[in-house]
């Protein structure tokens, strides 16, 4: 029998909900990511020792912050005997000065915005940004992150060590960026969160459970950012996009783990709560009247979410939205998606004509061939459709996706055989 101590449950909950906020505050005081992590861990150990006997304090997070700060003072004092660095002394003096001030829930500062901008600084590699954000803001352990990204734990740990070292060595500042750097830095933060979401959403290999946690974590980060950046429509746009995608997570796979397209999905299995939340955030974002790529992608997703059946989809609206998206982000991949929407709006032959101009740029891109195969099948060009499916299968790196394409290929071939 497992006895769950209520104090332990509170600690576990505090770790999950407050880690990022505690961590962010500690980095602010200590100006040192490693030290912040060490003393926060120590404070949690202390909580495990004290709370069961003495009871859970009125404000667990204030208690943890206070304890972690005291641990930091001890550590810096001990270190000082060996090498007294001016910067460390300054930190120590400041910590000692603040020791008397008791932090309460009301005065508890929220420094997470600084933390997210530092962790997502473009001076760090993309993978380092992702790992660091999940570790510091999300409070995921190294083991959890490694498992979610299907990486050896040592690799992930190394990545974190190097990132933290670089922050220190290059003196990447702990602050919210200046206005002239704002857009670039914000887009880096949003990209990191979306990357975390997509890692959980698209990849179907490996333990799917840990993957789902990544989606949940990305949504939590998106909610945090939307709260902290209320005037930034793209933050809310990204959150809306993630919620709308996530509403279809269950419906995307059949009973055997096979992939289902929007057309094949059982729309009753879509999560209505997620859809409502997504549309609410999208409306908030759009009301600020500064459209951006995430808002438009969310708007496209919302058109699908609003359609009761695939046949009811407002393809005209979707085509317009893709045109708008292309204006902001001229990429052939967006043109490809626009061509698919076009094929449902004006017919497969029109879609194929739209695809023609993309051949040179996208002939090494699996979705291009898959989309083309589908349109060829729809216009009855079976032989060409089969060839296109084969090209798509060759370029696919994902087993679930390959299975799906092979099923489509067999269907097309079967239909060709009958006629």
């Amino acid at each position, binding site marked *: 029998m497992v006895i769950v101590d209520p104090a332990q449950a509170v600690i576990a909950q505090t770790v999950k909900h407050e880690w990022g906020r505690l961590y962010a505050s500690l980095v602010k005081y200590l100006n040192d990511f490693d030290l912040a992590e060490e003393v926060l861990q120590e404070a949690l150990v202390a909580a495990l020792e004290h709370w069961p006997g003495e009871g859970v304090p009125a404000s667990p997070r204030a208690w943890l912050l206070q304890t972690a700060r005291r641990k930091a003072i001890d550590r810096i004092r001990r270190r000082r005997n060996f090498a007294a660095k001016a910067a460390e002394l300054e930190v120590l003096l400041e910590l000692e000065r603040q020791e008397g001030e008791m932090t309460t829930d009301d005065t508890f500062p929220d420094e997470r915005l600084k933390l997210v901008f530092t962790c997502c600084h473009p*001076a760090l590699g993309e993978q380092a940004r992702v790992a660091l954000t999940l570790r510091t803001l999300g409070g995921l352990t190294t083991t959890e992150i490694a498992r979610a990204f299907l990486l050896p734990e040592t690799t992930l740990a190394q990545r974190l060590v190097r990132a933290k070292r670089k922050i220190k060595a*290059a*003196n*990447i*500042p702990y602050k919210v960026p*200046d206005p002239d*750097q704002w857009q670039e830095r914000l887009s880096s933060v949003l990209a990191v969160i979306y990357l975390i979401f997509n890692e959980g959403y698209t990849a179907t290999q490996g333990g799917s459970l840990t993957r789902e946690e990544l989606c949940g974590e990305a949504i939590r980060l998106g909610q945090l950012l939307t709260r902290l950046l209320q005037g930034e429509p793209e933050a809310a746009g990204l959150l809306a996009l993630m919620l709308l995608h996530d509403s279809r997570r269950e419906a995307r796979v059949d009973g055997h783990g096979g992939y289902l397209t929007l057309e094949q999905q059982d729309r009753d299995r879509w999560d209505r709560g997620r859809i409502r939340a997504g549309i609410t955030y999208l409306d908030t974002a759009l009301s600020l009247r500064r459209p951006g790529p995430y808002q438009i992608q969310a708007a496209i997703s919302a058109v699908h979410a609003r359609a009761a059946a695939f046949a009811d989809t407002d393809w005209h609206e979707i085509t317009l939205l893709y045109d708008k998206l292309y204006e902001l982000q001229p990429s052939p991949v967006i043109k490809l998606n626009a061509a698919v929407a076009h094929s449902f709006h004006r017919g497969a032959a029109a879609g194929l004509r739209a695809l023609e101009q993309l051949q040179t740029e996208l002939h090494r891109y699996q979705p291009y061939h898959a989309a083309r195969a589908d349109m060829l099948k729809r216009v009855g060009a079976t032989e060409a459709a089969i060839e296109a499916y084969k090209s798509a299968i060759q370029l696919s790196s994902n087993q679930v996706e390959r299975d799906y394409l092979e099923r489509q290929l067999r269907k097309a071939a079967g239909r060709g055989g009958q006629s």
Partner: protein
Amino acid sequence: MHYALLIYQAEGLWEALSAAEQEALLGKHGALQEHTKQQGTFGAAVKLTPSATAITVNKEGGKVTVTDGPFSETKEVLAGFYVFQCDTLEQAIDYAERIPHIQAGKVEIRPIAFSDSRALLV
């Protein structure tokens, strides 16, 4: 903290400029140096001769070989560098953005671990 701002540019571009163009570019460099000297952040400014003058000293297993030419043949070569004293990386990025370029080029920022700059004062 000191940062080195390493300027990489396509080989031969500087030499291909007219005297007037060279002068205009040097003027912009001069302005940056003036600006940072006033701010008290200027450390050093170094312009290298073309990479055709480069000599590579290779040390392997105790054996030293000297060869003609730069360490690696790339389209872009190290053309020169600045050293600035900056509070944070952001300031170094700001200076990097102010470095004038011939058409296009890259600036690599490297935090300096140790320096003894007497050699640059000659």
